[in-house]
């Protein structure tokens, strides 16, 4: 048992799997005390979700994943079937707010009366009092479309007016609603309303086998398909006691870093575009397209979908492909270095980037900002560095770290990470171990748990799995780092002008599908 959890008075059980993780069940009455102590020990809230245990002769359960330096702690809080209430923790961990509301909408697991109890994922697709993730609700159930009245928080005062934006936006982006309260051009307040792409992913998982689920996991947020597929595979491997071969792990590392490079190149292009430097868009998207074509050639898919499967990877790197990939990355690296110096010296671009959309390190720490955006605001956490498991163990990966927390810092983190990921891919290609690429996946016992925890390009992706009988899924919660970061976008835009919103939004580039589920 780890020392940190001993101090919390817990007897946590280590969980089998690649990442250091522990689980423990606690009564609801102890939840707040433990969260307060965890917070005092600098543990972060990674995810919060619920489950229906009524088919297993129990009630419901609330689950929390807390990130400690020694690993992940999976806390489960059993709740009664008749009255699934628990004391809310959003005052301790602000990022819990929307997760608590989503859990209430889907399962009827409700925080105490002092919590924010407004709906979140429920629009008009199911009525109040219906809970689609409960086991009693059939997969094919349909509810009549009802009205969607959402209590936005109004801002009053002389000269204040509102701009409602979305869900259908002006650009090619995912749907969401942004309610701006402004004075003149300045943003006084932004309130986000998401949930538009809720398509019942978690319910879908519960009607799948462990094998079938891999494909769905890779489509929770398409831009992070590798991170999700790896996290899913890690969870299944933990639950079944499967050990992927070293060659498969090295190939997974290559895939994850390629996904990071491709996404960062695209974002750097759009960030140029959003400050009227369309040259940047053309150049970076040319480089991204080159890389996507190489992905298709080497791995059979432009975005590397379905390349990672439980047990290993689906396809080996063809003979001689390592040198080809290395040479291609060297060429991209030289061009990115040129483009970086053009961005750095472009007064117009820097004027728009610097001090725009700032999240200070203090605010980031308090609110729980994570991932890429966190590393731009002094939160120097990166799972690849903090818990260096194979294949990262031997590579000594470096985490990017900037502290200004503005658009410029998020641009700088992307440049740093593109170069670092290229170094990692080169090293992995050179030291690719021989051998198999896939181990057979053992059968899972019913009620086995597995955790997948991967640093995707946007931040930490978590998959929490509990199996049912016959290799099926009892409950699977995929967690995107966007849950933590969306609320910080509301803060980042304070005092900025409305026309800078697209730039600030793009500098975070958060997932809608990943949080709407």
């Amino acid at each position, binding site marked *: 048992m780890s020392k940190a959890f001993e101090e919390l008075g817990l007897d946590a059980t280590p969980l089998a799997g690649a990442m250091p993780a522990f689980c423990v069940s606690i009564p609801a009455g102890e939840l707040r005390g433990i969260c307060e102590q965890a917070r005092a020990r600098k543990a972060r809230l990674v995810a919060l979700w619920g489950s229906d245990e009524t088919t297993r002769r129990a009630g419901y359960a609330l689950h929390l994943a807390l990130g400690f330096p020694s690993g992940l702690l999976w806390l489960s809080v059993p709740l009664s079937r008749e009255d699934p209430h628990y004391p809310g923790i959003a005052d301790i961990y602000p990022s819990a707010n929307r997760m608590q509301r989503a859990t209430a909408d889907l399962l009827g697991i409700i925080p105490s009366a002092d919590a924010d109890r407004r709906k979140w994922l429920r*629009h*008009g*697709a*199911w009525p109040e009092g219906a809970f*689609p993730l409960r086991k009693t609700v059939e*997969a*094919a*159930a*349909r*509810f009549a*479309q009802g009205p969607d009245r959402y209590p936005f928080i109004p801002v009053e005062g002389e000269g204040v007016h509102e701009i409602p934006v979305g*869900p*259908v936006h*002006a*650009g*090619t*982006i*995912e*749907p969401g609603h942004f309610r701006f309260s402004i004075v003149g051009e300045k943003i006084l307040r932004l309130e986000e309303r998401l*949930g*538009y*792409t*809720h*398509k*019942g*992913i978690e*319910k*879908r998982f519960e009607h799948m086998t462990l094998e079938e689920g891999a*494909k*769905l996991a890779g*489509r*929770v*947020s*398409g*831009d992070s*398909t590798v991170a999700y597929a790896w996290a899913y595979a890690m969870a299944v491997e933990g639950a079944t006691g499967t050990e992927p071969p070293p060659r498969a792990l090295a190939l997974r590392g290559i895939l994850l870093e390629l996904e990071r490079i491709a996404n960062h190149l*695209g974002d750097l292009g*759009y960030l140029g575009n959003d400050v009227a430097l369309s*040259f940047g*868009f*053309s*150049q970076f*998207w*040319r480089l*991204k*397209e080159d890389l*996507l074509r190489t992905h298709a050639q080497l791995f059979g898919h*432009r*975005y590397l*979908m379905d390349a990672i499967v439980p047990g290993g990877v689906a396809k080996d790197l063809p003979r001689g492909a390592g040198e080809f990939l290395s040479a291609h990355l060297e060429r991209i690296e030289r061009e990115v270095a*040129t*483009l970086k*110096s*053009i961005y750095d*010296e*472009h007064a117009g671009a820097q004027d728009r980037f610097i001090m725009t959309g700032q999240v200070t390190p203090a605010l980031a720490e308090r609110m729980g900002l994570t991932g890429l955006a966190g590393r731009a605001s002094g939160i120097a956490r990166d799972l690849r560095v903090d818990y260096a498991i194979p294949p990262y163990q031997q590579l000594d990966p470096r985490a990017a770290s900037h502290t200004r927390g503005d658009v410029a810092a998020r641009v700088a983190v992307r440049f740093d990470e593109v170069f670092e990921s290229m170094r990692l891919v080169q090293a992995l290609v050179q030291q690719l171990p021989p051998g198999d690429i896939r181990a057979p996946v053992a059968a899972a016992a019913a009620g086995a748990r597995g955790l997948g925890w991967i640093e995707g390009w946007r931040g930490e992706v978590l998959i929490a799995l509990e199996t049912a009988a016959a290799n099926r899924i009892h409950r699977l919660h995929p967690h995107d780092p966007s849950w933590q970061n969306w609320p910080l976008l509301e803060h980042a835009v304070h005092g900025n002008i409305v026309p800078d919103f697209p730039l600030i939004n793009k500098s975070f580039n958060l*997932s*809608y*599908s990943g949080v*709407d589920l």
Partner: protein
Amino acid sequence: MYQLLKQIAKTGIVSEPAPLPDAALRQLEQRLGQVILKHFGRALAIRHVDAGSCNGCELEIHAMNSPYYNLEGLGIKFVASPRHADMLLVTGPVSRNMETALKRTWEATPDPKLVVAIGDCGCTGGIFGESYASCGRVSNVIPVDVAVPGCPPTPVAILQGILTAITPGR
């Protein structure tokens, strides 16, 4: 500035030829006359609507705007409002939370209009299918002229779908 101009000159023109239309992608008979299509073909305004996708198809729509595909050279551009659009490019299974917004966007698009559904989800509902939260394929909610399969379809496939929609029927 010198470095920027040098980079542009060094890059040159990377655009590639456009694909040919493919009648097999058609869902509905071509409803528009030759005269109208002639005008559409020269200046087509597209409004993209994500009706619930995983954002994979969005990646390829973005990629289609890269210099390799030279969309504007074909007279195609993405516009900010359905009121300015000739065509809706719809991705995703239609989530029930986007059902109303998609219908309203379709209604706001002036006639004559075209709809191209993008991706396996847009074509069939894909891996998400139909459920309490998903209406499934796009044609379950609005009429679809052309459907482009793929997960996600490549920029060339999407472009082919768009060109098919504005090509006269036999």
